[in-house]
């Protein structure tokens, strides 16, 4: 018994040491675990059949046939296509032109666009880099305090984790729902089911409040230290046309609201909504990138949008079910019309893809979607080997015992788990923590009586704060990499501090008022 626990702890320590070498995280987690499993088998401390189940685990319901996670590559595709079509740039330009005239306006623009981009891509690095490249130079040119500018950009970039439809929330939902069913098995309770929709609903209020806090802070600075964020003093570019605003701001907003609305209202499960989102991104990108040389393609794309709307209407006008015995003439017409609308939709989708391909954006977008998806799922594979071996040694019981022995009862246990995740957040990505740490600490915490959704939201807020905390915060790394040389690293670090304060306020708010995270999910559950 003692030997097994020693091996489990040594494996954890070795993994952390090996991770610091800078080799691929996924392979390090899996490889170190495998080496320890082999040692364990040699010493008779590890059940060998467990290791033989590796391939069936990979092809089973937790990885290759995981229906929850199908939404992940779809949202990634949606994000990279929007990124490739320069929707992000458009958003930022329009928002800063609209808001630039007031004090702190560029700051508000960055926060709002960060929230929107977050909702559309959910990729911290991409959002931070885009905003640093576009917004930071113009903020500095207008004599913004570099600390305020970089702090706002880094903080807004991390919003992508908490504002739905964030990719990491989907991964977190998968991990937490597994933990919840484990906990339920121990407690002898058929209780909790945690779906992606629940987490999206739970994260919505805290996410919006966080945006509100950021905006309020910038307003406060604009009021007390006007010189830190002056309004635009000169503007040599032509005024914005209504078309630009509707198209650049309205269209992405509509797409995001439609996807989110469909999930939260329960019309469509996340996977289905994600595929609509990806299709919408293709259509938008097709319209955005097409120019006068290809006249027919944009009209095809518009026809596709019309087709989509038509399907929604027709379904409510007619009984379109083809499976029923007798179909009335009216319904036959309805079915015919819907088939035409469906065909239009798919033709338009093909036109969108054609435009993307013509502008040499399709293949790079697909390639980077494949890269990001493979990255995520290789970590899932590595982490599942790690968890398998850690469990084989009984490491999960050790973690549970340590948490239950924590001083201060269940709140002490929660605090310890949160602190550990916060520190791990310095050098591990959200994904790794979700796949490795969450399955270990969540079941005991749920058994102690914490609500799974509330726990997940707290963890998401906690990790988001970790990514913002100097010296190791991920967002700050990305920002440093993309920021011009004359911005001092010390300024970036100091700029982040007020926003960390806001994060902590938010964490305390959610911790003390669980309804902030659990009220909306309880509504949608009905």
């Amino acid at each position, binding site marked *: 018994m003692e030997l097994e626990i020693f091996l489990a702890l040594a494996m954890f320590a070795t993994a952390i040491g090996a991770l610091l070498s800078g080799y691929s995280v996924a392979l*390090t987690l899996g490889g170190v675990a495998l080496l320890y499993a082999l040692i364990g088998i040699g010493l008779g401390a590890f059940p060998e059949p467990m290791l033989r189940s590796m391939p069936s685990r990979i092809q089973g319901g937790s990885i290759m046939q995981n229906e929850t996670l199908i939404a992940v590559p779809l949202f990634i595709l949606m994000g990279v296509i929007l990124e490739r079509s320069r929707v992000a740039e458009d958003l930022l330009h329009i928002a800063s032109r609209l808001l630039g005239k007031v004090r702190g306006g560029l700051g508000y623009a960055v926060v709002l666009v960060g929230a929107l981009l977050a909702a559309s891509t959910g990729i911290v690095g991409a959002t931070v880099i885009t905003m640093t490249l576009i917004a930071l130079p113009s903020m500095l040119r207008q004599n913004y305090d570099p600390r305020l500018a970089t702090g706002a950009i880094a903080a807004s970039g991390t919003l992508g984790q908490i504002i739905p439809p964030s990719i990491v929330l989907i991964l977190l939902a998968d991990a937490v729902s597994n933990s919840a069913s484990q906990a339920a098995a121990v407690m002898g309770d058929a209780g909790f089911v945690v779906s992606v929709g629940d987490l999206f609903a739970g994260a919505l209020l805290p996410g919006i409040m966080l945006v509100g806090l950021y905006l309020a802070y910038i307003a406060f600075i604009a009021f007390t230290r006007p010189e830190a964020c002056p309004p635009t003093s000169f503007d040599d570019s032509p005024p914005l046309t209504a078309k630009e605003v509707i198209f650049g701001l309205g269209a992405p907003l509509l797409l995001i609201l439609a996807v989110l609305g469909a999930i939260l209202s329960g019309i469509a499960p996340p996977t289905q909504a994600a595929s609509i989102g990806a299709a919408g991104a293709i259509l938008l990108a097709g319209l955005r990138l097409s120019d006068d040389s290809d006249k027919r393609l944009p009209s095809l794309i518009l026809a596709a949008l019309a087709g989509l709307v038509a399907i929604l209407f027709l379904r409510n006008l007619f009984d379109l079910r083809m*499976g029923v015995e007798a179909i009335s003439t009216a319904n036959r017409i309805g079915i015919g019309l819907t088939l035409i609308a469906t065909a239009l939709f798919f033709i338009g989708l093909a036109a969108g893809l054609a435009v993307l391909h013509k502008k040499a954006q399709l293949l790079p977008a697909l390639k980077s979607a494949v890269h990001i998806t493979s990255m995520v799922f290789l970590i899932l594979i590595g982490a599942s080997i790690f968890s398998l071996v850690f469990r084989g040694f009984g490491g999960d019981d050790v973690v549970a015992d340590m948490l239950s022995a924590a001083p201060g009862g269940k709140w002490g246990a929660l605090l310890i788990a949160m602190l550990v995740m916060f520190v791990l957040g310095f050098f591990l990505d959200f994904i790794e923590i979700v796949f490795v740490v969450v399955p270990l600490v969540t079941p005991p915490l749920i058994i102690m009586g914490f609500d799974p959704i509330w726990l997940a939201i707290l963890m998401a807020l906690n990790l988001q704060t970790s990514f913002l905390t100097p010296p190791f915060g991920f967002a700050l790394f990305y920002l440093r990499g993309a920021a011009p040389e004359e911005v001092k690293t010390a300024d970036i670090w100091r700029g982040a501090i007020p926003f960390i304060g806001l994060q902590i306020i938010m964490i305390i708010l959610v911790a003390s008022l669980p309804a902030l995270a659990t009220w909306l999910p309880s509504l949608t559950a009905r």
Partner: protein
Amino acid sequence: MDSQLFPLLGTGLKWLGLLALPLFLLPLLVLVLPRLTQRIATPLFKTIDRITGFALAGAMVAAVSLIVFQLIVVVMSYAFGLSWTWMSELVIYAFATMFMLGAAAALRDDAHVRVDILRPRFGENGRNWVELAGIYLLLFPICIRLLAAGEQGLARSWMLLEGSRETDGLPVLFLFKTLVPVFAILMIAQGVSEALKAALRLTGHLAPASETKTEEAHHGA
């Protein structure tokens, strides 16, 4: 179809794999005898990279198929109240194919996440040694273990030409299960290629990897 044919074919492939084992040593040979071996090493890693490129193309096709199949599922069930198991299985197949075929390309293009805290301080040579150690101690063991552990189950699946458990499902579950060894073999091959590149860089026969990759690579989620 003759049910004996596939296991025979599988055994043949396995022996082919075993015969290719000396290739694992090539990166180490490059370290010792760079001049003699680089004539084999350079074309070999280029070939492997190209093969991985084909797998990437397959993964990209799977990505587009994923969107299209999932949309068909959505429209059919939302508008017409129709759903077929084989259609939802196509979605799953496209989903899994995307990352099982794409993982090796992500390895080639350095798109897998690393911990970047100490890495910049190691210097070019240090990073290449880490790469070599990682490939031999971590990547190869995982993939070989996957191949070995999956052999029996896969042979059974091919002998039965195992199909979906549902009656209206796809009859090709054995192909889906084959994605795991395909993934392992692609990763091993790409591992050999990366090890060759690291060894060639260490001996000065290949230009150092550029460190200017802020946008494409590692933007975590």
